[in-house]
């Protein structure tokens, strides 16, 4: 016993030492940063009365000016050197690709952590091994993508340096210490990732496994901090702080990092990355499923696709709330910026976003219905699916109907009023909220059906539970749709308030019905096993649809976030005086996003293919279980 404790202590100490070593570069960097600041302050003191003070544009605090003002650029080869092409488009491309890969390699380790943890705590040995193998597969995919992320990061920096030198030199002068810490953390991230990956087999048993799992936690902490630092740059560009009106750095690096939009951006990006990562892994599983030659492979990748999809959707659901917070902060920071986004120049892009949200939910539902096909006993639900399709289609049509659009006075005159003569009567906010809430509630219903697909409840109150559930859902639909219709009869300012009871109804369905269903299904009788791998090929296309739509939506929202600065490199501090300081049309942006999405997918399919080459050489030892006797993953039921 004592020996075990000693071993554990030793392991913990070893782990701490490793973390300490990895974080050493950052610790070393901190004092030098402080010294740098002191030196500047000393320098300023020596010059006596020449100390110039500036006022922080956001925090309104006073500080000693230590930086140069933001350069006033002019259109020409000095500030905007170029090829015979739009520099902004090149930068857009480089940035987006780096972001796609960056998000992917940050999200996958989080999945690994969750799945490895599930493997460690699962009592079923075979299942634990499967989880472990899945986590290992994930990290393997991300390893190739990791080096590509670094390469793309390099390309991005070179693109900045060669095409926007004035802007980049200003940004790097403000963020000088942050950029160095970022680089050092990248080293720490790489080190941890390699140890984590290559130490997998060596650390697979006993307490070493826990150490290995803790390393994934550290990996994710470093990764998240890395992302936070990168977010501080875009946060600064949108809502600068820590500088005076001329853009002169005032010596407080925390102000520069902690801008008005930094935290909402951080949260939104973590959730977004997770949903995106889930989508990419689901697409990988779909690809492997479609390319699989054996039933065994099909069973494994079917299961992998399901887990990835479920994780992705789990993070998709809170995403709108994080988006709401971000948008609220945008309005609080500059109302004009909010209006440009939601009711001005960029408003049409939000219509596309609504369409995309609809597509995501429809794909998820379609996948779940297809997935019921691999369960014996789920046939009883099949005949009701057409009604769900009807509900989803109606909800979707109402959801994407525009009401008040931003128009020029000429358009206003042509249309004869603020609203379209026909559609204008329908697409009011409460009805649209009703639409999306019907969609989400229906998705919850699909999930509930999926979860009880091959089971029959054995609890004594099963009948009552079923009736209660049915009545609850019916009341939820009546409430949501009733309020949506009621909204037509009341003034706009009252109507807005209807969203609260509508959303509450949906969330009640989500939490109460999931909880009730789990209670009812405890110890339920199984009609038959889930026959992993016996799912239609069409379902895998739904996963691909989900993944592509996630990618497209990420490109779209990133574009919206970036273009809301209009003609500012750094909002209200540094103007964009290049010939591309205007906002492209919706069509051009859509084409550009498509091009980015396709490039990303072509390149990542190539990465998958590379991964499959190494897999062929790997020993078959990893393959477990025979189809049919496949244990059910805990996460699925």
């Amino acid at each position: 016993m004592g020996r075990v404790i000693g071993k554990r202590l030793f392991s913990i100490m070893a782990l701490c030492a490793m973390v300490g070593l990895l974080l050493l570069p950052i610790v070393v960097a901190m004092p030098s940063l402080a010294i740098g600041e002191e030196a500047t302050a000393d320098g300023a003191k020596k010059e006596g009365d020449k100390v110039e003070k500036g006022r922080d544009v956001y925090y309104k605090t006073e500080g000693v000016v230590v930086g140069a003002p933001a350069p006033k650029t002019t259109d020409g080869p000095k500030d905007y050197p170029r090829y015979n092409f739009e520099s902004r488009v090149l930068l857009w491309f480089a940035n987006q690709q780096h972001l796609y890969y960056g998000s992917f390699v940050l999200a996958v380790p989080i999945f690994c952590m969750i799945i490895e943890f599930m493997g460690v705590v699962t009592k079923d040995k075979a299942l634990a091994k499967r989880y472990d193998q899945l986590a290992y597969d994930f990290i393997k995919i991300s390893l190739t993508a990791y080096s590509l992320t670094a390469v793309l990061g390099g390309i991005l920096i070179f693109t900045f340096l060669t095409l926007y030198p004035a802007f980049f030199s200003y940004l790097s002068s403000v963020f000088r210490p942050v950029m160095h810490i970022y680089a050092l953390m990248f080293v720490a991230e790489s080190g941890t990732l390699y140890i984590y990956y290559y130490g997998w087999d060596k650390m697979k048993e006993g307490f070493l496994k826990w150490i290995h799992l803790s390393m994934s936690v550290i990996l994710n902490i470093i990764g998240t901090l890395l992302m936070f630092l990168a977010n501080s740059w875009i946060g600064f560009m949108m809502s600068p702080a820590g500088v005076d009106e001329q853009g002169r750095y005032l010596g407080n690096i925390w102000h520069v990092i902690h801008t008005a939009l930094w935290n909402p951006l951080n949260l939104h990006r973590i959730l977004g990355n997770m949903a995106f990562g889930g989508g990419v892994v689901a697409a990988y599983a779909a690809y492997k499923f479609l390319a699989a030659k054996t039933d065994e492979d099909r069973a494994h990748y079917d299961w992998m696709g399901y887990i990835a999809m479920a994780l992705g959707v789990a993070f998709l659901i809170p995403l709108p709330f994080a988006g709401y917070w971000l948008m609220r902060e945008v309005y609080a920071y500059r109302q004009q910026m909010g209006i440009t986004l939601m009711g001005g120049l960029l408003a049409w892009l939000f219509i596309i976003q609504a369409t995309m949200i609809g597509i995501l939910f429809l794909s998820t539902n379609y996948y779940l219905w297809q997935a019921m096909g691999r369960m014996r006993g789920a046939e009883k639900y099949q005949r009701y699916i057409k009604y769900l399709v009807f509900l989803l289609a109606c909800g979707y049509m109402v959801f994407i109907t525009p009401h008040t659009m931003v128009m020029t006075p000429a358009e206003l005159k042509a249309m004869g009023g603020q609203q379209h003569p026909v559609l204008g009567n329908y697409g009011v906010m409460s009805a649209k909220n009703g639409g999306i809430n019907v969609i989400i509630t229906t998705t919850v219903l699909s999930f509930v059906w999926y979860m009880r697909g091959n089971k029959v409840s054995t609890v004594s109150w099963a009948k009552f539970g079923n009736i209660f559930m049915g009545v609850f859902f019916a009341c939820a639909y009546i409430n949501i749709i009733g309020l949506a219709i009621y909204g037509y009869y009341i003034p706009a300012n009252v109507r807005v308030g209807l969203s609260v009871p509508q959303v509450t109804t949906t969330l009640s369905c989500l939490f109460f019905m999931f909880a009730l269903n789990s209670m009812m299904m405890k110890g339920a009788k199984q009609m038959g096993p889930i026959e992993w791998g016996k799912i239609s090929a069409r379902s895998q296309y739904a996963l691909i649809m989900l993944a592509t739509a996630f990618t497209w939506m990420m490109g779209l929202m990133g574009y919206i976030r970036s273009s809301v600065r209009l003609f500012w490199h750094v909002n209200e501090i540094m103007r964009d005086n290049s010939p591309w300081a205007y906002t492209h049309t919706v069509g051009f942006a859509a084409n550009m996003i498509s091009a980015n999405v396709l490039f990303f997918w072509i390149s990542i399919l190539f990465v998958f293919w590379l991964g499959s080459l190494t897999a062929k050489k790997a020993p078959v030892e990893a393959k477990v279980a025979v189809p049919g006797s496949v244990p059910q993953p805990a996460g699925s039921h």
Partner: protein
Amino acid sequence: MGNLISEALSMGWMAMAILVGLLVYFQVSVKDPAAKKRAVFKTFIGIVATFLLFVAIANYKTNFYGESRLLPVSLVMITVTTFIMALYFTNLSALLRIGGMMFFIAAFLSGYGNWLPQVEGGFPPVEEKKTWDSMTPQQLADEGEKIIFGGVGKNKEQGAIGKGQCPLCHAFHAGMLGERAPNLLGLPTRKERLEDPKYSKGNPSKREYSVKEAFPGSGTAETVQEYIAESHSCPSCYVVSGYGVKGTNDKESPMPAIHKPPISLSLPELAAVDTWMYLREGVEPPSFEEIIKSYEKFIPEADRPKQQEEKAGPASALMADGSEPVDQIFAKAQCVSCHTIPGIPGAMGTIGPKLEEGTTAAQRIKDPTYKGTAKSPAEYIMESIVEPSAYVVKPFPDNTMPKVFGQKLSAGALKKIVDYLSQVKAGAPPPKIS
């Protein structure tokens, strides 16, 4: 399409030539008839797919910035290509089908984006820091004309209006009658105002107006320029007979102080406006410094608006963009000068009808003399703002209300006005300001 095909051929002829070569080679060299048929067929499909791919690339190349934005069509072609390839290259089938699916989704979304109305954000206003004090009088006058009318040479244009919003109430040319405010022709030589006993030159405490002085101790004007400056900064210090707020017996002016919100002209901008007034009549204007000094006499330092750099935002000079609460929109558009609007502070105007549209709009639509096109109260209100002459409420004269609001208010601002006015009912408490 012809262009695209020739462009595709010029780019892809080598690839296609190789495939045609292969086709011929298989035709000649493969002995087994079944294998020959399969090889020839596959190559033929390959040629079709390659051709489609190059048409798509040519399309992408020529229409990247094009108006027609045919990229989605390209993507559909690539989709078709990949599916064709997937049918015949079975070992890559899954990859190609997935690729095809993704191209299809991208094509759909691109097509959707292109189908929506295309709005392009214009270039930002040119950043120029005006150096007012070094401008010639003519340059200064041009700036002044821009502030009053929105552009140089626009002073005779019907409905032209600039940041200063002066033409909403004032007339500037001979023969034009301003209903709400005096005609400003001849202002630079209007010395008689200073001699008017009501003006009470040198003794502001004897004035009978609602405001005696611009600020305590500012005194009264001694010169014409000072009179102009005082009129801009303290309109109620002296009110021209017949132009006061109705019911105040000309004791109070409906004009807002020009250096304060919503108009907020800076001192140099006011100097530019004044310089235009002089120059257009051929009168030599006072120097820039003298004009500034005249304003400094009536505007205390704390009240002077800071010189603004060219503001960020669209170049069109909107009076209100819709982000403001509705009471501010009414103030910015100067509706309050002419109309009484229940619930809106300061809206006591009587030049136009009282706005209780929740009650009156429906009645007016039913009026047999109504010739407009509105079917609902909301449409009627919108019509009255955008086309005021569509129906003129008796006994008010036609052509008093400016016809510029359709251009000068954003759609959002118009919507807020319509929403508010449609809720104002006679005899009922006014609606909440939102």
